[in-house]
Each structure stands twice: as structure tokens, then as C-alpha cells.
């Protein structure tokens, strides 16, 4: 029964993570194409896949309960991450909408740049609090391992990409990409933990 519940929760997690990723990529492609949807509606398209964040956060919580890795700190982390992600998207939409609509001064542009950044502060704070609040040393060690792998991966890829850009091999990538890249690295780190059986 528990095995069935765990398997079903794992499938649901995979489904919602895939749905979120596909939704975000599709929304991004729609906005980049620019022909179909004009601002501010173009940015509003991003809100739809963002709603998928809710089941995407809840499904792993169910999975954690089913696999015996749930902890109060992990639940708080999920909720804080969800709130920070929404803050990021809302900040991003406001910043892009205001920046697109009129020519703004450099100081205003700098302030607008801070809007989505506040959400990322929230994400970093949520991760820090999790590591501090998690009383289960094994779960904490696994998260720290994954975070170290994510950081290492980000530094290595960032350096490599930087030289590719310098030598004119690859296009420039905006530095705000570090947060989603780090999040992908965290997922890779958790996968490595799982494969290694750690």
C-alpha cells in the first residue's frame, strides 16, 4: 500500500515538474516569437505555467510523506520557495512591463532590476533557513551535497561558457540565468544522490 502510494506520488511529482517545465518553455517561446501576443499580455502568459508551481510543490510533499523523508523543515522550505517563486515572477512581470512601456532613467531601471531579484533573495533565504532548521542530519547532508554539486556545476559551466563567449563560439547569456541554472544543478545533485544511494 505504502509502496503504491510512494510510486503514485513519484509519478505525480514527475508529471507536475514536466508540466511546469514544458509550460514555462512554451510561454517563453511564445513571448520571444512576439508575433502572436503583444505586451502586457505577452508577460501575462507566464502567469499560467506559474500556477503549475502549486501542484509541483505539493506533489513532492506527498512523495516525501510516502517515502519517509518528510520533515517539518522540508514542508516550510517548500512553502517558502513557492512564495519566493511567485514573488520572483510577479517582480519580473512588473519590471518588464514598466521597462517596456516607457523610456526610463538609469536609476529607475536599476530599481526595476531589483524587483525580480527580491524573489531570488527569498529563494536563497528559504534554502539557508532549511539547512539551519532541518533537524534530520541525513536529510540535511543530502541537501548540502546537492547544493554543493549545483554550485560546482554552475561555476564550471559559467566559466566554460564565459570562455566560449570570449572566443566568439557561443552567444552571450544574461547573468540572471544563474538562478535557474543553479536550480537545475540542484535537481541534478539530488539525482546523483539517488543514483549513488546516498
Amino acid at each position, binding site marked *: 500500500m505504502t509502496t503504491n502510494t510512494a510510486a503514485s506520488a513519484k509519478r505525480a511529482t514527475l508529471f507536475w515538474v514536466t508540466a511546469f517545465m514544458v509550460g514555462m518553455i512554451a510561454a517563453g517561446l511564445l513571448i520571444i516569437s512576439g508575433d502572436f501576443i503583444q505586451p502586457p499580455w505577452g508577460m501575462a502568459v507566464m502567469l499560467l505555467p506559474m500556477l503549475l508551481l502549486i501542484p509541483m510543490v505539493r506533489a513532492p510533499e506527498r512523495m516525501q510523506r510516502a*517515502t*519517509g*523523508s*518528510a520533515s517539518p523543515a522540508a514542508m516550510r522550505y517548500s512553502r517558502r520557495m513557492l512564495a519566493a517563486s511567485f514573488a520572483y515572477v510577479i517582480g519580473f512581470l512588473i519590471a518588464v512591463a514598466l521597462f517596456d512601456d516607457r523610456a526610463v532613467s538609469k536609476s529607475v531601471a536599476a530599481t526595476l532590476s531589483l524587483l525580480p531579484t527580491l524573489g531570488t533573495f527569498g529563494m536563497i533565504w528559504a534554502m539557508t533557513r532549511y539547512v539551519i532548521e532541518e*533537524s534530520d*542530519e*541525513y536529510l540535511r*547532508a543530502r541537501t548540502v551535497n546537492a547544493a554543493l554539486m549545483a554550485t560546482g556545476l554552475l561555476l564550471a559551466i559559467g566559466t566554460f561558457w564565459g570562455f566560449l563567449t570570449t572566443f566568439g563560439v557561443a552567444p552571450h547569456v544574461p547573468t540572471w540565468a544563474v538562478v535557474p541554472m543553479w536550480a537545475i544543478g540542484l535537481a541534478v545533485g539530488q539525482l546523483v544522490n539517488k543514483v549513488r544511494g*546516498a
Partner: protein
Amino acid sequence: MKNRLKVLRAERDWSQGDLAERLQVSRQSVNAIETGKYDPSLPLAFRIADLFGLPIEAIFLRD
């Protein structure tokens, strides 16, 4: 590090969940320690030893 956790747990007819609850850790932690994938810290090893009423070296063995 090898350990006798599974045997000690079986002697008491405890599930991994039961032991996890008594140690106030996750079931996954108990599983990782039991299968030798994770070596507990000294404070957790003492908690395990206290729970079973045994010295640490009677539960955890050198490789």
C-alpha cells in the same frame, strides 16, 4: 561502517518507521544508516545506543 541496527530492530519487532519515530528522524535516515549508506554523527549514534541500551561499539562495527 557496518552496524547491527537491522538485527536489533528485528529483535524488538520494530519497523524502520517505528525506529525513526523513536529517534525523531526520518524513515529514510534509518534506512540509510541501516544499509551503511550513511554514517550517523556521534550525537545520533549515542541516541541510537541509548535507545537500545547498548554501547555504541556493540551497534556500530569497524569495516
